[in-house]
């Protein structure tokens, strides 16, 4: 309880710190929204030009970016500081964190308030409302519950991927380079049915770089396309659970990497 209170107070202070430069604050909100809009633009351009993408109708396809973007926005808000952690590591801030009586990962997350998450979340919620209103599915409590689980699972899976990269950054700060590519890949290839891609490429985005589990598989299960994904149905259906497990694994990797971390002075 005490630690929760401290986290809340630090978050409030971080938020006030962000308000110091008002224009920058507003622009950061805008960039969150604009980044999300770019994903929508890409998806809608494809949907407008190539109807019936992978055998899905447009209202079904729209649920994929909506789920992914909402998961991404929540990730940015709650756990997003692992993205770009390499910069904090390169600047030696981790050495300071190690001296303080608070877990390093928590200090990393509390380094600053993610203003852009406000824009991210606004657009993501808007798109989700739009996607749900266009959807012709029967939204039973089971489906709604699974959608919520899918968003939370997507949040944790994205966090797991970025935490794994942050762990690598503890040893090789330049590994941070990969996190920008990962974000780009999630934005471009995580927002539509992956069955439009050749099987080998779809397999890579499932078992190599598990983007398919973030939104494509859960939405495929929700919309009745779960058997056409190229992966076993049970695996696709278990996506939310896999996200949580992946995150637990990534946090173990983070702790292990931190134990082996050596600062500039050894």
């Amino acid at each position, binding site marked *: 309880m005490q630690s929760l209170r401290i986290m809340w107070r630090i978050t409030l202070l971080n938020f006030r710190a962000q308000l110091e430069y008002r224009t920058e604050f507003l622009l950061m909100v805008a960039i969150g929204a604009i980044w999300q809009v770019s994903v929508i633009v890409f998806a809608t351009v494809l949907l407008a030009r*190539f109807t019936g993408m992978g055998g899905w109708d447009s209202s079904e396809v729209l649920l994929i970016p909506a789920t992914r973007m909402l998961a991404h926005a929540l990730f940015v808000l709650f756990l997003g500081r692992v993205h770009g952690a390499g910069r904090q590591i390169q600047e030696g801030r981790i050495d300071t964190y190690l001296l303080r009586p608070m877990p390093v990962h928590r200090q990393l997350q509390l380094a600053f308030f993610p203003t852009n998450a406000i824009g991210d979340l606004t657009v993501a919620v808007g798109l989700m409302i739009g996607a749900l209103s266009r959807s012709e599915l029967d939204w039973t409590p089971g489906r709604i519950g699974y959608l919520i689980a899918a968003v939370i699972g997507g949040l944790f899976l994205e966090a797991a991927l970025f935490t794994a990269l942050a762990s690598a950054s503890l040893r090789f700060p330049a590994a941070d380079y990969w996190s920008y590519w990962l974000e780009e890949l999630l934005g471009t290839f995580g927002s539509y049915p992956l069955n439009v891609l050749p099987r080998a490429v779809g397999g890579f985005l499932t078992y190599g770089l598990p983007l398919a589990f973030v939104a494509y598989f859960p939405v495929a299960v929700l919309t009745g396309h779960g058997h056409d994904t190229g992966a076993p149905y049970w695996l696709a259906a278990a996506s939310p659970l896999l996200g949580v497990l992946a995150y637990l694994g990534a946090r173990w990797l983070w702790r292990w990497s931190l134990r082996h971390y050596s600062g500039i002075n050894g």
Partner: protein
Amino acid sequence: MAVLHAWRAARVTPLGELHTPPRMTAVLLRLTVQIVLVASLWHGLYADTGTTAGLDRDQAVTYAVLAVLASRMRELDQYAGRDTVLQHMHFGTIVYWYLRPLPPQRYHALRALGEKLYGFAWALAGYTVCLTAGVVEPPKSAATAGVFVLSLLLGQLVLYYVLLVLDQMCFWTVRNNAAMLILIFAQNLLSGVYAPLWFFPGWFVTLSAFLPFQATLNVPLSLYIGRIPLSDAGLQLAVQAAWVVALHLFTRFLWRRAALRVMSQGG
């Protein structure tokens, strides 16, 4: 002597890259995966479609793959070397740019030249592999190839000046990460990095025609694939050249103003 100084400044980033094999491996892997993914995506999308937005499948794939390759000429990570203008402003080390015998604007241009040449080597190698593997189509004629090279050169100049304006903004704003991200986003969207501009609605294409971003990538790539006919090339090249001149004059003005804002040892 000046040539030697220029060479030394230009080779900083390429040398840094060559001395970090993991980074080069990462670039190679990233480029390969990105090309395979992009080519697969457009092949998949065109599976049930003929020509759309004036582009057939091969043109769309060629455009998208060349856009990925061209991005190598922009995406070098100066941040790791702590040599971005933003970092220099943050740490106060920008003052050293003004204490050297090399003018800051020339140093900036030389660094960019070295980076672009290094990125171009990657892009050229990737293009050769893609052409040999049949992933991209060759240009329709020698004239098309010539016009494309000229247009690509002008496009890279426009891109340099656009990114320079972003760097120069750092002299006026203490915090400008968001503004930089917004402009980079605009560059990506309006130059055709996300998707060929021809797929966007008509009003969007018209709007982008009035901005410099489409001159960086969309024009050379559209000339290459034949979406802009050779008969229109003269006009397009003239527009690109006009942007180069306008942005050159604007950034020269900004360099002068920026110099007045740099303080050493408190004034």
